[in-house]
């Protein structure tokens, strides 16, 4: 998102550049004059307001399976352990089905949590199959199988599926991730067989498949590189043969023969080897070594995926005492008051409790950040809800458990109007987009994902826009900590 802002944020680019050099340090150092200070602070404040106000919102989705099944064949919940060999077997089975003319996409739903904001469809696999199938219908029209602990759901672009559905009635679903995966495998095979596409159960090779692919890619790369090296060697061999590197000083064939002979003698080379061949061999070896290194580097970077390099610096920083954090008091998940500022260092973030994609990732990053710090100096995390409709105690407790949130994590919930005022104050855009599918309404929340660092004196010190890294926030916190101890 930061890259996007830099690329897209017009007014943001220049002010942001101006804002970055402002370090996390106390006011008055470096001999700033008051005028410069006031102008600088105004610029920084304007930059932050512009960035936060114009930050493109992150999407918090109500139905996690639809996100994955848009492009993949299998949705497995992230938080339920599935035996790797069964996962691999199921993936291979689906791939084999697609190859043999029986494409099918499968969503395994282990708990109500996996349904995001449509928890009311928990335990209703057939209804959820219709719902998800409708959601995917602009991208995918084929068969869709839902596996829930209490049964299967099937959808095929609105076509009748009762017959296929009945064939699954006898498939037993054992509890746990393994049971669900096994049931999915049996169901897919039964459905495929009934449609005239019997699928053999693939041998579980959970780890070997990617290794083989990577090895074959490396082999291919090496072959291409070797072909290039051979071509270069061939051309240079011909070239050196036709015109050796050093011409004999005495000119003529006789002189050259004499020189070659004396070189051979001096270097104690066997009679048939000419001095140019060691040079060619050396060149070839060097090129080969360079290219093996290249191929290995290629392999390594291909495994690195799209982990783009995010800068570790915050998007905006403020000097101490420059920008007071807007004060508010809400209640936390235990119905206790939670206030900002609170007299201690605070990480203030904005989260949708029903989000199942970016919010949990951001929460984990923040949690990991404070877990890196000594127990005594960990700041509190205040997560202001951006989805008042989801602020039930059950949802918050579920998130606390599923996201493995630390005790320092405090939700901040309250009346929608109070929340809206806080969002506005901190430049957080929240859009509620209702979506109606099969008579079910999902409130899709679109919101800016931003995190502020607030020091113990109640001043905003840094703003991080998602995605940010643990190291970035930790560096900001350490800086604040150092200031505290340094007086």
């Amino acid at each position, binding site marked *: *998102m*930061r*890259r*996007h802002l830099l*690329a*897209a*944020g*017009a*007014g*943001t*680019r*220049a002010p942001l550049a101006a804002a970055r050099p402002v370090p996390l340090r106390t006011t008055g150092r470096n001999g700033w004059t008051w005028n410069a200070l006031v102008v600088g602070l105004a610029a920084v404040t304007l930059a932050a307001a*512009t960035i936060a*106000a*114009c930050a*493109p*919102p*992150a*999407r918090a*989705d109500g139905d996690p399976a639809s*996100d*994955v099944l*848009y*492009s*993949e064949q299998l949705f497995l919940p992230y938080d339920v352990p599935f035996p790797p060999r069964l996962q691999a077997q199921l993936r291979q089975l689906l791939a084999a089905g697609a190859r043999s003319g029986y494409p099918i996409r499968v969503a395994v739903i282990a708990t109500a949590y996996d349904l995001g904001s449509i928890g009311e469809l928990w335990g209703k696999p057939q209804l959820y199959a219709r719902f998800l199938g409708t959601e995917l219908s*602009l*991208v995918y029209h084929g068969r869709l199988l839902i596996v829930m602990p209490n049964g299967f759901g099937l959808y095929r672009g609105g076509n009748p599926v009762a017959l296929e559905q009945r064939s699954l009635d006898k498939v037993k679903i054992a509890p746990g991730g393994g049971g669900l995966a096994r049931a999915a495998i049996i169901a897919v095979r039964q459905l495929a067989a009934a449609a005239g596409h019997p699928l053999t159960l693939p041998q579980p090779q959970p780890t070997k498949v990617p290794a083989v692919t990577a090895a074959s*890619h490396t082999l291919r*790369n090496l072959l*291409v*590189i070797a072909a*290039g*090296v051979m*071509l*270069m060697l061939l*051309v*240079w061999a*011909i*070239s050196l043969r*036709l*015109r050796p590197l050093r011409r004999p000083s005495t000119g003529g064939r006789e002189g050259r023969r004499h020189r070659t002979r004396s070189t051979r003698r001096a270097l104690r080379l066997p009679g048939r080897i000419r001095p140019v061949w060691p040079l060619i061999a050396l060149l070839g070896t060097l090129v080969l070594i360079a*290219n093996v290194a*290249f191929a290995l580097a*290629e392999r390594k970077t*291909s495994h690195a*995926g*799209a982990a*783009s390099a*995010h800068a570790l610096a915050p998007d905006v920083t403020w000097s101490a005492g420059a920008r007071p954090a807007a004060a508010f008091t809400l209640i936390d998940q235990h119905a206790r008051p939670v206030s900002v500022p609170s007299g201690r260092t605070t990480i203030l973030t904005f989260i949708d409790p029903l989000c199942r*994609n*970016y919010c949990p*990732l951001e929460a984990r990053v923040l949690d990991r950040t404070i877990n890196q710090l000594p127990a005594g100096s960990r700041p509190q995390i205040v997560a202001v809800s951006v989805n008042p409709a989801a602020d039930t105690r059950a949802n918050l407790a579920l998130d606390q458990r599923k996201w493995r949130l630390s005790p320092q994590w405090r939700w901040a919930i309250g009346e929608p109007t109070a929340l809206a005022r806080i969002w506005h104050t901190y430049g957080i*855009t929240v*859009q509620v*987009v209702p979506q109606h599918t099969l008579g079910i309404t999902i409130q*899709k929340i*679109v919101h800016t994902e931003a995190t502020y660092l607030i020091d113990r004196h109640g001043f905003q010190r840094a703003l991080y826009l*998602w*995605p940010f890294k643990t190291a970035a926030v930790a560096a900001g916190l350490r800086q604040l900590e150092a200031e505290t101890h340094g007086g």
Partner: protein
Amino acid sequence: MRQRAICLALALTAACLTPGAAFAHAGPTPPVATSFIARIASTPLGVQARIVDADQQLWLHVPPTTTLVVLGLAGEPYLRFSARGVEINKHSPATYLNRAQPATVPTTANPREPPLWQRIQTGRSYRWHEDRLHALAFTARRPTSRYLGRWLIPLRINGRPARIAGGLWYTPPPTRLWFWPIPVALVCLVGLLRLRRPRLDAIMIAILTLTELAAIIATHALRDLHGRPTVPASQLAWLAASSAVALVLVLLILRPRWRAVAILAIAGYALAEGLTLLPTLYKGHTIGALPPPLERLTALTALTASAGALLVLFAGTSFDPKGRPTRRSLNSP
């Protein structure tokens, strides 16, 4: 030497006259490759929407009876399609931010102000750079997944809320082996050049020049025949003009006096075209009329042949008054 400098200047001037500069209204230059693809999942009834340039621009066509307002980043009116044509709200910050090269937001641009509409098009279709399509491009992505997330463009159609929704996908980069033929070819050329055989040099120059011409025509075809979202007559005209330039260069090669000029001009032109297409060699999704492997091959050919031709021309070959390549020593001072 003076002649060569003139030739190089001519070549670079010719290379600058590419569609990239011609279609600058959508951004500095239309991209030739990207790592991200946006796809539309749902569109309101009657409205036609297309993604242009993978994840960069959105094109809308609205029926005459419909008034459609595209909402900006803060939910304010941003673009309006109506009977008057297409208008843009000068009070919307998105007018200044939602661009390939964003502008500074003026103080008068306040999303809470009533819209100040300015007509930008008389028709019912319009395409614009839309940041929301690729807003998720740099967010975290699960290693096994290529799906990044959804995007949403809020609308109001005849006053009613609506939206265009879709998803954003990541395309991994191609293998870096695509760059490997360039050093191989250059090393081989140096090996052949040091032989100082005018006839061999002439053959090399001929092969490289023909390859360059093929690459130039292919690069123009893949860019000019690519629709954004359709292929307008101007693009076809540009393709015709480029082909005419290539033909003139071929004719110049046949005239001994102009042979060196033409060869150098073609090399410079092909090099510029190759550099323009360079992103196709390291980004996953190519944007053009040809399939990705062909586009990469075109870029590779243009780069390799032009670099090789320039190497041959500047490292060793010169032309006699009859346009035949003569040799100078590689080792001569």
